[in-house]
């Protein structure tokens, strides 16, 4: 079973709560995903156009909530966001994400390491969203992150596992769980990540923007299970062509 910071998770699929067209769709998709953990974000209240409470429906689902620091462009802003999230949600878990560039939304590695180090010292369980750089992931583990969350592809891009070789190094060497986050567009992408030995995946856009989010969440759940099982069994290695039926003389090619 997956364990992060001494907490066990029965599902290796984590989900994001953004981009759903309705709260009801989000709830049914999360339920169908079987996930034990869902991310959410923070915002300053618009005093003139107040948004309804999004927390109550999520709390009804009885899953762990993982606040993110989305919107933070610097380490300082991310630390503030984490402190606000801790006060708001009474959790010391945080998905650390610092992406200052709206063009590609790639995470700032230096700011992420610096914020991670500070947040660990403040008692946070830090899950950093990061570039699939093996040395960066190693550094994030060394400063005390409870897991690393390298991206498969840019956020919301649905491009799948674009740097499998880099993820393979990370998975092989990481002393902490590896959660592949961002860019997984199809259940097969999630299966690829899990077959490689990832400990979990986090999916948002591919479920939330699917024509039927709940059905797609169930497909992702299945793919994650199958991918994990495949990894645990160990799959046959690749080689040149090798007949899988006997090549005996059946026809007489005279």
């Amino acid at each position, binding site marked *: 079973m997956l364990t992060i910071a001494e907490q066990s998770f029965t599902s290796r699929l984590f989900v*994001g*709560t*953004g*981009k*759903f067209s309705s709260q009801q769709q*989000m709830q049914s998709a999360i339920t169908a995903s079987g996930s034990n953990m869902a*991310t*959410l*974000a*923070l*915002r*300053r*209240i*618009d*005093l003139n156009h107040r*948004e309804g*409470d*999004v*927390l*109550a429906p999520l709390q009804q689902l009885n899953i762990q*909530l993982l*606040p*993110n620091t*989305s919107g933070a462009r610097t380490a300082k802003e991310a630390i*503030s966001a984490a*402190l*606000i*999230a*801790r*006060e*708001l*949600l009474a959790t010391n878990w945080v998905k650390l994400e610092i992406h200052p560039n709206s063009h590609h939304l790639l995470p700032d590695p230096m700011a992420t390491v610096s914020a991670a180090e500070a947040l660990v010292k403040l008692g946070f369980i830090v899950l950093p969203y990061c570039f699939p750089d093996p040395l960066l992931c190693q550094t994030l583990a060394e400063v005390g992150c409870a897991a690393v969350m390298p991206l498969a592809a840019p*956020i*919301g891009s649905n491009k799948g596992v674009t740097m499998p070789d880099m993820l393979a190094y990370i998975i092989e060497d990481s002393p902490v769980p590896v959660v592949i986050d*961002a860019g997984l567009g199809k259940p097969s992408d999630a299966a690829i990540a899990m077959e490689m030995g990832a400990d979990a995946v*986090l999916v*948002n*856009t591919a479920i*939330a923007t699917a024509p039927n989010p709940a059905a797609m969440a169930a497909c992702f759940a299945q793919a994650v299970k199958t991918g994990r099982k495949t990894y645990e069994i160990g799959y046959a290695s690749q080689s040149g062509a090798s007949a899988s039926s006997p090549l005996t003389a059946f026809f007489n090619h005279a």
Partner: protein
Amino acid sequence: MNILCNGEQLTVLPPHTVASVIDQLNLNNQPIAVAVNQEVIARSNWLSHQLYAGDTLDIFQATLGG
């Protein structure tokens, strides 16, 4: 007196505490978090935390996101 609340000027009524402003904004018992001058103020300190003219008060809520 005036403070800057979520980026907008807000005239607040006495006793000028975090709790009184939250009350004035009808946000009692809402799942929110508050920072004064970029420092998070625990809910248990809202009653005692005094505000001064020109302070920045930011009020946050959870929202959906990935």
